């Protein structure tokens, strides 16, 4: 992991620095024709949060190894914690080390990013998962179509409910905020594809870290008769999954393939996770860095990437096979196909107002 790999990257870093200081313009030169020698193409990943969220910070972290192995380039990372006042300094550090490209993830660091981008117009930035509005000329934003993966999760949940002869599914969010409600909306619409008058019981933990409270929320929903819950609540989501174990019910994970992540340490938790709505951040990262090295990234714009691009999707693993019937799985893949070739109509959640969210949410409240 980062910890063990750090020291040597450190060494190389320093080596790089001294060398590049020796010949500034030469590095600039190499930027133009990177294809031929990728070895000295340097990428940094700035993580505006704490690793271990079992969610997209971890997902982003995983892309490091992929980039290294696939492209044989150097990738360093900085984990700059939850205190947003530190992000700027972290960025400056990276910019000072003249990387060819700086990756980041999530909207946490947006303001810092905007500022730094203006101050270092030469430096290129790509945010692997964001929804930023005014985008600086040297920044490219990838915004995954979260609602598409949640759309499928919704379908999965509804199918499971149907199989159990139920009419209600559950949703536990970390906080009642747009980033989460985006998930909810997709989830609801997906479910409605399977069962038009499905009910969705939505609940918010009010924190992404209080796993115990997450469990309470899960238990309450399960006790109220729900059998499948989509847990979009970071760490707190683990509580929901734990509740599923306790109540012998089912959960759907989020962001990374949680069943896969849990199967060694917590098999019985993995066993209740039908699937997970995943952002394929490593894949996206690989795709975009390739483009960046070939200099065909439209900086200053935002690109929406969905199922079609493999940027998002749902986990298809042993547990999925085991917990969802053959036919149901087929229904899901059909739906997926529809989405990919644009037949399905999914509300565009970007900039959805609180009122709109409320109407959608209340419409299906049990």
């Amino acid at each position: 992991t980062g910890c063990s790999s750090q020291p040597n990257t450190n060494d190389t870093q320093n080596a790089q620095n001294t060398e590049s200081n020796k010949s500034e313009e030469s590095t600039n030169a190499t930027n133009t024709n990177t294809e031929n020698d990728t070895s000295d193409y340097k990428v940094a990943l700035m993580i505006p949060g704490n690793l271990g969220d079992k969610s997209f910070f971890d997902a982003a972290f995983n892309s490091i190894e992929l980039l290294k192995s696939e492209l044989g380039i150097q990738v360093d990372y900085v984990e700059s914690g939850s205190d947003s006042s530190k992000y700027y300094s972290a960025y400056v550090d990276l910019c000072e080390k003249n990387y060819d490209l700086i990756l980041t993830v999530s909207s946490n660091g947006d303001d810092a990013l905007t500022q730094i981008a203006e101050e270092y117009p030469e430096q290129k930035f790509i945010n692997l998962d964001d929804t930023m509005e005014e985008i600086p000329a040297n920044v490219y934003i990838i915004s995954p179509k979260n609602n598409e993966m949640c759309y499928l999760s919704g379908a999965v949940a509804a199918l499971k409910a149907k199989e159990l002869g139920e009419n209600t599914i559950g949703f536990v969010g970390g906080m009642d905020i747009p980033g989460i409600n985006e998930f909810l909306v997709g989830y609801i619409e997906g479910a409605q594809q399977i069962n038009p008058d499905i009910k969705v019981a939505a609940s918010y933990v009010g924190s992404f870290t209080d796993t115990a409270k997450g469990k309470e929320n899960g238990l309450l929903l399960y006790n109220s008769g729900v059998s499948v819950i989509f847990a979009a609540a970071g760490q707190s989501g683990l509580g929901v999954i734990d509740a599923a174990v306790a109540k012998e019910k089912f959960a759907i994970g989020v962001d990374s393939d949680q069943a896969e992540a849990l199967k060694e340490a917590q098999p019985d938790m993995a066993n209740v996770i039908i699937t997970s709505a995943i952002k394929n951040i490593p894949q996206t990262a690989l795709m975009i860095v390739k483009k960046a090295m070939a200099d065909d990234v439209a900086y200053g714009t935002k690109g929406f990437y969905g199922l079609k691009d493999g940027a998002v999707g749902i986990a298809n693993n042993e547990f999925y096979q085991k917990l969802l019937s053959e036919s149901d799985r087929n229904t899901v893949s059909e739906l997926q196909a529809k989405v990919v070739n644009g037949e399905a109509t999914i509300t565009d959640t970007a900039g959805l107002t609180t009122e709109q969210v409320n109407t959608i949410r209340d419409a299906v409240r049990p």
Partner: protein
Amino acid sequence: MNREKSFNIIRTLFSMVAAILVAFIIIVMVSKNPFESIQIFLLKPLTSKRYIGNIIEAAIPLIFSGLSISLLFRTGLFNLGGEGVFYFSGIIGSILAIWLKLPPILLPLACFTASAIAGTAVMLVPGILRAKYNANEMVTSLMMNSIVLGIGSYILNNILRDPSVANLVSYKYNSDALLPVILKGTRVHAGFLIALLCAALVYVYIYKTRSGYEIRVTGTNPKFAQYSGINVTKVIIMVHVLAGAIAGVGGMVECLGLHRRFEWTGLPGYGFDGCMIAMLANNNPFGVVGASLFVGYLRVGADLVNRSADVPTEMIAILQSLIILLISAEKLLKKYRQRWIEKDVKEVNHEVAS
């Protein structure tokens, strides 16, 4: 300067050194290449203008909460409400910073006023309960922290929240509200000047004015204060008002200085930091500035080690708690103190004899 004072200074230095030594030990234990890490921790913060800037940035909020808490401690009050005040006054100030339309200088001033009032209001609850009914301010202020957090996040969720951003933050501040950077190439903002100004004012207030005198006397012996005709109830309330206002401004300064919108999703922790600062400074206003810079230095060091080496930032928490324990340890090094004081007594008698 008497022995008592110099003794306190020595104990403080002792604690600082101890903290740094412990940092070494931790680094040596967990770091793959300790020496580089120690170097980074100790020296790197001083190597570039930017890092020094970071130290100052980090010190600014600490100065405010340090000043606020030191006033309370001086009066013998264990009020831990600075925590909630920082958060809540930030929220209230943000409302203006977002929607109020005023020219550059005036807008921040308006925000500060609002946040100062908010801070005072929050502090006055434990303040009045203590002054009038002698309710334990420690408990009540802790309660207030959690209460204002609840109210604050309710306001944030339902009024201030910017729906165009995925995570829980307020709308952007009106750019006229933001504090200008005063050191090119860093983010050291005008808040630093305000902090220094506050420190100076508090100094004058404590040592040169009547009501400062009242506070000092009430702090060391309330019975004596009462006996001298000082209205202790009034003094206690007064102190809470000041402490609330200072911490309140501090919260706003932090928001307008380093952020572009309100970004705290929980209590920022400056309140408790303030206790440490106040102790490091032995409640002396200028000491507060020094102590804040020192702690800022430690934190930047720890950040750098975390960023460019392999030691988690949380190391800082261990150092800080050590500092608190050591500095507030009355009896620490008491042997030497004993000798000194006895020596003094003798000296006096000698002077008399001769």
